[in-house]
């Protein structure tokens, strides 16, 4: 399987955080080319490229750009979603650390395409190292006169997964609690400060320069037709060589884990794979021959999501894994929608009872019933991200869940790799919670 580097090209050999180094590999040539093109011609290239958003939802970027309301008399904004927080994902951090000018160039090209003078990069609050690199790169780009009439503001978050959800991101950027908005209206019509707004993930924007440079049709031909191009896969968990691997979409899951990742350490067996971050549903070893592109992973019953492949070996208790994952979503629920706020907490209580061996048989059904009452019933996808995976953990590992009930405790007897993992939900939540009897 070929490693195909577009967003991370040359990042291994050169210090691309330096402007001169980035320019030496042809950096900012796409910007010069784009600025000679009419904005709508740049959008046409993005449409032709069939580039799908790399933030998790996979929506075609060119189409999103073409939806922007025109002639409103209001400014058009570009917001870059750099609030990378999906568990298992660490690609945007690496792209920004190693290749900050690629993102800046992508911002400037995209701003030209949508006729925007105002770009905000909403950067995850914890990423201090990225903030420093990006701030320096932006300063260098300004001094070199590359910005034209565009201003790019680096806006730091302050710790909230939900702000990676686009409407919560806008709320947070407006100086509010990061709680999602009802849609419609969609951001393309009424986004930041009620103005037309395009929101894209870091890697999506960082891919724009190569599309302008080589043409949308060229890009559309690399990788499988419905989802062309490359993705930086974040490989983590029980694997010999974890890390970021930029590969063509459609690369094999088996090759990523075994050839590039070196397989499972310590002679253990592969038990499960989470293909796109913890919000995506679990896959099992019999699905190793799945191709990693949007459609193939969907056909396998899961989601490519943010391409964060978490490898789980046979030491992990799947009830503990479901519990720890759900504790994350309980912690990160913004509290706005009742099904998500209360549902995630209820799911955590039931999973804890299962793990402790205190659950009745009926409570396993109750868990699935609670999931059903969360799915599709909230303003944003966070509730779905919590409930969807739990349904699949139970479906794929039903025997293991059942043994917790039958044996009155965890069959791993304290030997699970996840035994006793402490979760931050006991320290802080974004939504105030009152204690009620379980």
């Amino acid at each position: 399987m070929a490693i195909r580097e577009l967003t991370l090209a040359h990042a291994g050999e050169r210090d691309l955080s330096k402007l001169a180094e980035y320019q030496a590999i042809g950096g900012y040539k796409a910007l010069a080319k784009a600025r000679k093109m009419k904005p709508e011609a740049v959008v046409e290239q993005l449409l032709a490229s069939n580039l799908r958003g790399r933030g998790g939802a996979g929506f075609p970027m060119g189409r999103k750009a073409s939806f922007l309301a025109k002639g409103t008399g209001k400014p058009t904004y570009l917001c870059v979603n750099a609030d990378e927080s999906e568990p298992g994902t660490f690609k945007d951090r690496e792209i920004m650390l190693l290749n900050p000018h690629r993102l800046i160039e992508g911002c400037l090209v995209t701003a030209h395409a949508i006729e925007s003078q105002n770009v905000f990069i909403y950067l995850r609050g914890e990423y201090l190292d990225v903030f420093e690199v990006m701030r320096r790169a932006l300063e260098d780009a300004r001094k070199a006169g590359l910005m034209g009439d565009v201003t790019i503001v680096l806006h730091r978050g302050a710790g909230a997964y939900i702000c990676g959800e686009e409407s919560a991101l806008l709320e947070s950027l407006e100086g509010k609690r990061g709680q999602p908005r009802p849609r419609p209206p969609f951001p393309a019509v009424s986004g930041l400060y009620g103005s037309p707004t395009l929101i894209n993930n870091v890697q999506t924007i960082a891919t724009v320069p190569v599309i302008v440079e080589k043409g949308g049709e060229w890009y559309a031909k690399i990788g499988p037709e419905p989802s062309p191009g490359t993705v930086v896969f974040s490989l983590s968990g029980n694997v010999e060589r974890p890390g970021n691997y930029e590969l063509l979409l459609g690369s094999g899951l088996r090759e990523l884990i075994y050839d590039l990742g070196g397989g499972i350490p310590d002679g253990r067996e592969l038990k499960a794979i989470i293909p796109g971050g913890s919000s995506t549903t679990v896959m099992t070893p019999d699905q190793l021959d799945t191709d990693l592109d949007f459609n193939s992973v969907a056909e396998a019953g899961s989601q490519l999501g943010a391409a964060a492949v978490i490898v789980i070996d046979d030491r992990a208790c799947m009830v503990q894994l479901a519990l720890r994952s759900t504790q994350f979503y309980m912690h990160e629920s913004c509290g706005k929608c009742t099904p998500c706020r209360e549902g995630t907490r209820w799911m955590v209580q039931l999973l804890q009872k299962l793990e402790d061996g205190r659950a009745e048989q009926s409570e396993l059904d109750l868990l699935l019933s609670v999931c059903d009452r969360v799915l599709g019933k909230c303003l944003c996808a966070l509730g779905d991200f919590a409930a969807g995976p739990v349904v699949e953990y139970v479906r794929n590992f039903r025997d293991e869940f059942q043994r917790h009930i039958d044996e009155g405790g965890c069959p791993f007897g304290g030997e699970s790799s996840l035994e006793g993992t402490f979760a931050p939900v006991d320290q802080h939540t974004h939504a105030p919670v009152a204690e009620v009897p379980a």
Partner: protein
Amino acid sequence: MNLDAIAAIATEYPERQSAILPALRLAQEEHGGWLPPEAIREVADALDLAPAQVEAVASFYDMLHLAPVGKHMVEVCTNLSCALVGAQQVLQAFEEQLGVAPGETSEDGRFTLRAIECAGGCGRAVVVVVDERYREPVRPEDVPGIVEELKRGD
């Protein structure tokens, strides 16, 4: 409180309310790592907003602290990718070395220990964040050295 700095931040945004978050981060730095009520009022005054509006924001975000914290903040990611490769053992090593439970501050006010959600360093697990700087990867046996280094630097 650095009012000029807050005013400068506010000019970057079309609406001054957008400056609440960066202003709160600045205020927190100036108030020893947390936001006492007077810090909330100062930010509100500097931006000509109601204190309640500022506190509503401050109480939402995980990195903003409404209670005192230790001089050093030690945070251990215990989300899936880190947990699968021993995050709990790293957290326990810090508990033993610092003598505090997660979410607590040592009696001498030097250390706050927290478990955190995914920090975005899953490829170099276990991720530990010390005073906003990532240490990755950290093994349980690295913990005494990290604590020693922090104590020595004080």
